[in-house]
């Protein structure tokens, strides 16, 4: 109850940090989709590229997040505003699930269907937009869903470099050894992750090809 009272008392700040948090997650997810989906499509069509690209995305994933933030801090333009840096790091982390699911979704399209389409005289781009992407969309979205849920958690660490977000409460709480403050950041973050999970999951089911 103490926690709730604390949050209610500081509702202005909770809201502000939640919005900041959403902004970090939202922007980085959009970037990751803009990069990851085309890259996933590319490696699904040029199979030779799939190993190196997935390996690179995998390696990024293995860098500890705190270390990545640290590495990027001295980079000139990025270091100017910690928000940019946080978004770049979150984008990099979100890439793997999006690339991998796009690749899986597209390569999972029935070869007979593609061949029928090609044989009927669909161009490669018609095949992509009318057949491959619609059939892969739910798999791709499930990758996006994973990316968002992971990003909501990771974005709390962005506060360590001063990028804001709900991590502020968590770090402050840790410094003050005050669980109420930690929870004031952790609870909204958990709720955000759950909402994103449910929301995108719903979209995923709506768009699932028959």
């Amino acid at each position, binding site marked *: 109850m103490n926690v709730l009272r604390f949050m209610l008392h500081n509702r202005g700040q909770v809201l502000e940090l939640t919005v900041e948090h959403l902004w970090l997650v939202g922007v980085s997810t959009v970037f990751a989709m803009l990069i990851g989906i085309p890259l996933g499509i590319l490696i699904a069509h040029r199979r030779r590229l799939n190993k190196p690209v997935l390996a690179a995305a995998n390696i990024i994933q293995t860098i500890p997040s705190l270390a990545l933030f640290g590495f990027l801090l001295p980079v000139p333009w990025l270091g100017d505003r910690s928000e940019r840096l946080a978004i770049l790091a979150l984008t990099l982390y979100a890439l793997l699930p999006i690339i991998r699911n796009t690749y899986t979704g597209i390569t999972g399209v*029935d070869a007979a*269907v593609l061949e*029928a389409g090609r*044989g009927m005289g*669909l161009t490669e781009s018609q095949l992509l937009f009318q057949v491959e992407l619609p059939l892969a969309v739910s798999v791709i979205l499930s990758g996006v869903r994973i990316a968002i849920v992971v990003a909501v958690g990771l974005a709390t660490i962005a506060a360590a470099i001063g990028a804001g977000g709900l991590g502020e409460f968590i770090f402050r709480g840790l410094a003050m050894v005050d669980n109420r403050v930690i929870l004031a950041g952790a609870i909204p973050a958990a709720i955000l992750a759950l909402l994103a999970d449910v929301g995108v999951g719903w979209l995923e089911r709506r768009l699932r*090809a*028959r």
Partner: protein
Amino acid sequence: MGLRYELRYAGRNMPEPAATPVIEFRDVSFRVGQTQVLSSFSLLVFKGETLVLLGRSGSGKTTTLKLINRLVAPTTGEIYVNGRPNTDVNVTRLRRGIGYVIQDAGLFPHFTVERNIGLVPSIEGWPKERIRSRTQELMQLLGLSPEMATRYPHQLSGGQRQRVGVARALAADPEILAMDEPFAALDPLTRDELQREFLLLQQRLHKTVVFVTHDLREALRLASRIALMEAGKLVTVLTPQEFVKSSDPWVAAYVRAFGDGLESAANRGAS
């Protein structure tokens, strides 16, 4: 017998003088790595006939079919479609002029029956009304009831899916139909039904059909001429009537494998 027989017969076997070649394979070879899939393959397909490519698995018949619409490019040799090398024509144009039907139909699972059938007309930019009426016409032609229009492929039986596959191939009214074992995955009764309907359809439409099968009975029933293939080579081209009587060792082996009663199968389609 009589006139009825004569007409049917003429429909199945083009009278020689009027025969115009629509597809021609000129000394075509196709190799993948070390494997010679097709070697010096030459064949004429005439307007309005149903040419059946018959052969066992791996004999090169599907490759032969795919050479026509350039899903496969020959290693050497040329394929002529309507008197021009098929490499002269834009590949999408070429393919849209050749209806393509495959085993299990290859329908788009996320499109309704209606959209599946109307896909080529719609990418060709036909007006909506025309697509709708064409789709309805084809559904009727293939014995699909109107309420099927809004169903999805997974809600159809195998036979219905294949009918949709044929309707889709006919949508833009192509002169040529390329059919790759279209009825092979169906149960015997449905297959029989679709073969019968194919014959009726062909009597009305007179498409130039290249039909791949390994089923001799199907070949005898549907073909104007049968091209027997073995190990990437064309063994011989015969009418069904000639086929069952042929003394060619490959043909005889095929006929023997299918057992008795084939003469009647050869005649059933004709009479």
